[in-house]
C-alpha cells in the first residue's frame, strides 16, 4: 500500500468519521436528556437524503405527508390529554402550536417545489421538513413513557425504528438515491486531491459541533438541557420542563440526522433503510464515550470512520463485521475502566 492510497483512505475515513461524530453527539444528547437510546436516529439520515432527492425530481417528498399525519396524531393525543386532565381551555393554543407549523411547512414546500430552487435552498427545505419530525416522534412515541425504565424506552425506540423504516419504504420506494454534491470542486494539494464535498462535510460538522458547544455552555436553554441530563427531578423542581427539554433534543437529533443525510447523499447511494447502519456506527462512537462523554465519543466516531475505510480496502466484504465487532473490545475496556454502578428502577 503506497502513501497515496493511505492518504485517500484516511480522507475517506475522516469524511465518514465527521458524519459519525455528528450522529454520536446527537445520540448522547438524546440519551442524556430523555434516557432514550435513539435507535431511529438513522432514519432521519435516510429521510434527509430521500427528501432532498424527491425535491430534485420536482416531486412532493413523502416526509411531508408523514409530517402532516404525525401532527394529526399528536393533535389527537394532546386533545385527549388536555380534556382528560380538565385543562380544556388550553386546547386551542396547544392545537395551534401542534398543527400550524407542520401545515405551514407543507404549504411552503408545495409552493417551492415547482420553482426548482437552488440546491442550498432545497437543503434548507429538507431540514425544515425533517426537523419537526423529531419532536413529533418524541410527542407520539416517547413522551407518554417519560417515567418508564430505560429498557421500556429502548423497546419503544426499536419499535419506532421499525415504523419509520417501513414508512420510508412506503413513501420513497425501494430505489436508492444519490443527491447532487454541494460543490464539484476538486482541490489539489501536492499529490492529494480533496473533493469539495468532503470539505463541506468537515466544515459543516465543525460548525455544527461549535454551535452545539456554544449552545450548551452559553445559552440558558442549553444550560437547562444540561441540567435535565444531569438530574431530571432536580431540573423539574427548579422549573425546567423535561418535556420541553425532550422536544428540543429530539429536534436537534432530527436536524443533525437530516444534515448528515444531505451531506453523505452525494458520497454514497442511500436507500430507505441505509440510515440504520449509519446511525448504529454513530452508536459505536457514542459507546466509546460511554453514552456520556462528547470528546471520547468524537474520538470513537473518527476511529469507526478510519476502521471502515481501511477495512474496506483490505477486507471489503468484512467491513461491517469489523466495525461492529470492535464494539466487544470497546465494551470490555469500558467495563474494566469504569466503576461498577447499579441501575435502580
Amino acid at each position, binding site marked *: 500500500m503506497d502513501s497515496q492510497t493511505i492518504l485517500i483512505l484516511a480522507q475517506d475515513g475522516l469524511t465518514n468519521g465527521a458524519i459519525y461524530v455528528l450522529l454520536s453527539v446527537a445520540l448522547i444528547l438524546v440519551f442524556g436528556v430523555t434516557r432514550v437510546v435513539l435507535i431511529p436516529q438513522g432514519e432521519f439520515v435516510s429521510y434527509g437524503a430521500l427528501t432532498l432527492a424527491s425535491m430534485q425530481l420536482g416531486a412532493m417528498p413523502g416526509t411531508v405527508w408523514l409530517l402532516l399525519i404525525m401532527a394529526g396524531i399528536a393533535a389527537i393525543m394532546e386533545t385527549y390529554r388536555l380534556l382528560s386532565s380538565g385543562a380544556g381551555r388550553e386546547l386551542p393554543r396547544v392545537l395551534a402550536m401542534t398543527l400550524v407549523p407542520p401545515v405551514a411547512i407543507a404549504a411552503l414546500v408545495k409552493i417551492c417545489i415547482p420553482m426548482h430552487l437552488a440546491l442550498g435552498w432545497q437543503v434548507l427545505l429538507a431540514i425544515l421538513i425533517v426537523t419537526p419530525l423529531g419532536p413529533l416522534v418524541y410527542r407520539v412515541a416517547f413522551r407518554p413513557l417519560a417515567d418508564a425504565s430505560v429498557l421500556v424506552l429502548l423497546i419503544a425506540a*426499536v*419499535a419506532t425504528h421499525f415504523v419509520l423504516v417501513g414508512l420510508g*419504504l412506503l413513501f420513497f420506494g425501494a430505489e436508492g438515491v444519490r443527491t447532487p454534491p454541494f460543490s464539484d470542486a476538486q482541490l489539489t494539494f501536492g499529490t492529494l486531491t480533496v473533493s469539495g464535498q468532503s470539505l463541506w462535510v468537515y466544515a459543516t460538522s465543525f460548525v455544527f459541533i461549535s454551535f452545539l458547544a456554544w449552545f450548551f455552555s452559553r445559552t440558558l436553554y442549553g444550560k437547562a438541557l444540561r441540567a435535565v441530563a444531569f438530574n431530571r427531578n432536580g431540573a423539574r423542581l427548579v422549573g425546567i420542563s423535561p418535556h420541553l427539554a425532550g422536544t428540543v433534543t429530539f429536534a436537534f437529533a432530527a436536524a443533525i440526522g437530516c444534515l448528515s443525510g444531505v451531506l453523505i447523499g452525494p458520497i454514497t447511494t442511500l436507500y430507505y433503510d441505509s440510515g440504520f447502519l449509519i446511525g448504529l456506527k454513530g452508536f459505536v462512537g457514542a459507546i466509546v464515550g460511554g453514552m456520556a462523554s462528547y470528546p471520547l465519543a468524537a474520538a470513537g466516531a473518527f476511529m469507526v470512520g478510519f476502521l471502515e475505510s481501511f477495512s474496506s480496502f483490505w477486507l471489503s466484504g468484512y467491513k461491517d463485521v469489523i466495525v461492529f465487532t470492535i464494539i*466487544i473490545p470497546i465494551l470490555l475496556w469500558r467495563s474494566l475502566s469504569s466503576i461498577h454502578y447499579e441501575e435502580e428502577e
Partner: protein
Amino acid sequence: MIRRIGLALFLALLAILPLCSSFYITLGSYIGLYSMVALGLVLLTGVAGLTSFGQAAFMGVAAYTTAILTIQFGWSPWLTLLIALVLTMAIASILGAITLRMGGHYLPLATIAWGISLYFLFGTVPALGGSTGISDIGALQLFGMELRDERVFYYLIWGVCLSALWVTINLLDSREGRAIRALKGGTSMVEAFGASGHRLKNIVFVYSAVLACLAGWLYAHMQRFVNPSPFGLNQGIEFLFMITIGGPFSVWGAIAGATVITLLKTVLQGILPKLIHQTGNFEIIVFGVMIVAVLQWMRGGIWSLVERLLPPKPNQPINDSSDLSMRDQPLRGTVLLRVDGVTKAYGGLVAVKKMSFELSAGEIVGLIGPNGAGKSTMFNLISGEVPRTAGSIYLGSENISGLRPSQIARRGLSRTFQHVRLIPGMTTIENVMIGAYLRTHDGIFTAGLRLNQTREARVRAEAAKQLRRVGLEDSMFLPAGSLSLGKQRIVEIARALCGDPLLLLLDEPAAGLRHLEKKELANLLAELRGQGLSVLIVEHDMDFLMNLVDRIVVMEFGEKLAEGLPREIRSNPAVLEAYLGGV
C-alpha cells in the same frame, strides 16, 4: 380448576393441530420454535429486567454449527447439538461478563452489534454458503428412525418447547428463581442475602441463549436448509416484540406473543402488499405501532388480560416444622460486633472518622445522630456495601472489613433497608423465603427438574415460622406490595430473620411509620431480644429508641459524640446541644 381446564384445552389443541393441512403444521412448528426463544427472553427481559436483541443470532450459531458439522464432517446431529450448546454458552458468558457489570443498556447495544456482525459474517464467508446458505442438511435420527415427517417434527418441537416451559416455571419458583425475580429492583437486596447479582444475571442470559440455541438447532434440521436472513437483527427484534405483545412478565406471555406475532405476520404479509400495490415488509409498520401502543397502555401485554380472568393460583401447603439447620448463637454478653477505629473518606470529605463501639450478644444498640452525622455510612460500612478507608470491623472473632455484602451475610449478618426493598408482585411468604437464600443450596438444575421439593418445603415452613414470629401470618399469601408501609417494614424484618442471623441490622426502621405502628415495631423488637437476638438499629427518632434499646451510640459530624445508657444520653449536654442546638 379453571387454570387446569385451560391448560388441558391448550394441550389438546396442540395435540390435534397436526390433523390440519400441512400449512398449519408448519405454522405450528414455527410458533413452537419462536415460543422457545421468547421464553428465554421473558426470563431475561420481563423477569430480570435485562434484554437482548441477539437471540436470533444465537439461533444462527446453532443452526450453522450443525449445518457445517453434519455436512462437511458427517457428524451426528446429536453430537453437533452438544457442540452448539457449548459454543452458545461460551459466547453468552463472554458477552455477559463484559456487559452485565455496566448499565442496563449496554447488553442490548452489545447484542445489536454482535447480531449485525454475525449476520454479515454468515452472508460473507464463502464456507458458510454466503447469502444463498447451506442446503441438504441431514434429517434427525432417533432410535434408527429418520424424523422426516413434518407431523413428527411438530411433536418434537412442541415436546422440547413444553419441557422448556416446565423447567422455566420450576426455576422461577425456586431459591435461585426468587433471587432472579428480585434483580429488577437492583442487586443490593439479593447481595444482602448472599446471592451474587452479577452471577444471577449471567445465568439468566446464558439460559436464554441456550433456549435460542435449541430452537436454532431444531430449525436447521426441520428446514434442512439455512441462510442468513432468519438470524438477522430484525428477527432478533421481532422476538422482543413477541414478548412485549404477549406479556413479558409471564412464561405464558411468550407462547401468546409468539402465536399472535407469527399469525399476524402471515396474514399481513398476504394482505398489505396487495393493499399498497408494492412489495416489501410493511408488516413492520403495524408491529411497531402495536408495540408503542402496548407499552403506553398495557405494559403487561395480552397475558395480563388473561391473567385477570383467571382465579388466583392456589396457595402452596405449609409444613409444620422447618427443620433447617440453625447457627449456634453466641453466649449472651460476649462481644458480637466490634467496630475499631473505622474511617470512611470520600476524597477530602470524611464521612465517618475513627468510629469505635461494641455490641454484645443479646442486646439492642441504637446508633443515633442528627441528619448528616454519618449513621447511614456507618451502617453501610458494617454491611459491606461501602468499602472502608481505614480501621477494622469484627463479627464475633472474625474480621469482616473488606468483605463483600454477600460474604458478610454468609457470616451471619442480616439487614433491612431504609427504603423498603420487597418485590411488590411476589407474595409476602415468597419475599421472606429470599432471606433463606444461604440456608439451602439448590442450583438451577435441581430446581429446573423439580428435585428441590423437600428443601423448598423446609424453606417455606421456615418463612412461615418467621412470619408467625413477627405476627404477620395473616398476610402470608398477599402480594407484598399490597401491605401498608408499617407491615412491609416488618416483612423485611421477617425476611432478615429467615437468614438465621447472629446480628440483625435495621436501617431507620421507624421512618415514615405512624405512632401506633412504631409502638408495635418496638414491642416486636423487644420480644425478639427476649428470644436472644442481637440488634443494631440506626435511627434518628430518639423517642422510638429511648424505651427500647439497652445502649445508645451517638454520632455527630462522622465522629462518636457519646455512648451510654438511654437515660445518660438523654441528659448528656453534648447530645442535647447537637440535637436541639443548645438548651
